[in-house]
């Protein structure tokens, strides 16, 4: 068993310095963020901004009208979408579609199944969302995104360090270990560290960065222990439901700190799995953006 360690900044730097030409997120995201900082911004103003990009607009409307949200009436304008689902929800939808868009362009190396990967990511997002709802959180989209992006480091490695990543995939295949263990052995850093670094580079919120960077070591997440713990367990739930694959066939080790931080009992698993499975099925609408 390998206890996930926090790599020294040097080790991480040595790896990520070799990652070149990373995609960027659309400027619209930072514009939305800037608008939302001002409390007097109206839904109409945000909607005008989003509507300036027809591709994003159509994706947002596609998602808000999907069974993932299941709103009983058709939502035909972005303004309606913002008012009905809330400012944060729409920002999260824009963010997630943008991320799919950015990563879709990167070329997959051999031996790593992107379709299964995204299904696992969406499943983890859905399960994290279910967990967050059970724990009484209201900003559920943040947790969906955190789950969705928890393994984004694997995509970065796959696309930008394909030779190293091919070794990782080969090691997983040979010794039937987890990706985490193989990455630590091959690279000295793992996909969680790389994912956290990427999200930080994209200027996403510290909560999101910590939840992704610490999803295998929630105890090190500091004040964001709970979000990291939610993604940690969300990942377990998605694996138990066998939704897609993160690239390995083994369960990672449960963090006791994470489990006790959530304060739920093991008897809630049947209900969590049932809800997670339903939610994941509805969330598969995002899969089209990954193609």
């Amino acid at each position, binding site marked *: 068993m390998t206890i996930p360690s926090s790599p020294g900044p040097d080790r991480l730097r040595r790896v990520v310095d070799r990652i070149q030409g990373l995609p960027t997120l659309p400027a619209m995201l930072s514009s939305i963020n800037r608008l939302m900082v001002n409390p007097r911004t109206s839904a109409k103003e945000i909607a005008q901004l989003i509507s300036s990009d027809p591709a994003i607009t159509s994706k947002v409307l596609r998602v808000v009208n999907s069974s993932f949200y299941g709103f009983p009436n058709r939502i035909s304008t972005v303004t309606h979408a913002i008012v009905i689902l809330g400012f944060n929800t729409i920002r999260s939808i824009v963010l997630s579609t943008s991320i799919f868009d950015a990563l879709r362009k990167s070329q997959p190396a051999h031996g790593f199944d992107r379709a299964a990967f995204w299904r696992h990511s969406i499943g983890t997002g859905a399960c994290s969302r279910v967990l967050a709802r059970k724990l009484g959180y209201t900003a559920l989209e943040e947790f969906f995104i955190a789950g969705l992006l928890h393994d984004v480091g694997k995509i970065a490695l796959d696309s930008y360090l394909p030779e190293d990543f091919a070794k990782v995939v080969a090691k997983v295949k040979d010794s039937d270990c987890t990706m985490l263990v193989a990455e630590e052995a091959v690279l000295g850093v793992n996909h969680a560290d790389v994912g956290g670094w990427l999200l930080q580079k994209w200027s996403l919120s510290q909560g999101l960065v910590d939840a992704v960077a610490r999803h295998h070591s929630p105890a090190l997440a500091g004040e964001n222990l709970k979000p990291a713990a939610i993604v940690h367990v969300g990942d377990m739930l998605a694996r*138990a*439901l066998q939704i897609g*694959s993160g*690239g390995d*066939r083994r369960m990672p*080790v449960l963090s006791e700190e994470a489990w006790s931080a959530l304060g739920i009992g093991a008897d809630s698993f049947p209900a969590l799995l*049932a809800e997670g499975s339903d939610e994941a099925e509805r969330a598969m609408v995002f899969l*089209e953006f990954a193609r």
Partner: protein
Amino acid sequence: MPLYPIDKVAPGMRTATPVVDAGGMLLVREGAEITAEILERLRSRKIPAVDILVGGGQPPSGTPLSVTDPDAALAALAHAFESVNGNPVMKALYEAASERIRAGRRP
């Protein structure tokens, strides 16, 4: 992966990609074997065509099989949990998940 028009899709074929309907609802997971029941569902949702896996190739390595067969799913689950079942919480998760498979409630 060839795109088969729905009237050329037959039971026994395997999907190459997940099939999602116009509302974003997942109808069939990728790698799933088409059964008469699934075919009926695809037709009723007006799915025009399906990506079909040719050559009966296995999914890429490292990917758990997209198992429709409960026995294979149970075996994959048992394998995944093998090394962590000493933890009572993980054991409970394992049991809850296998119970779902046994009860036929598959994602």
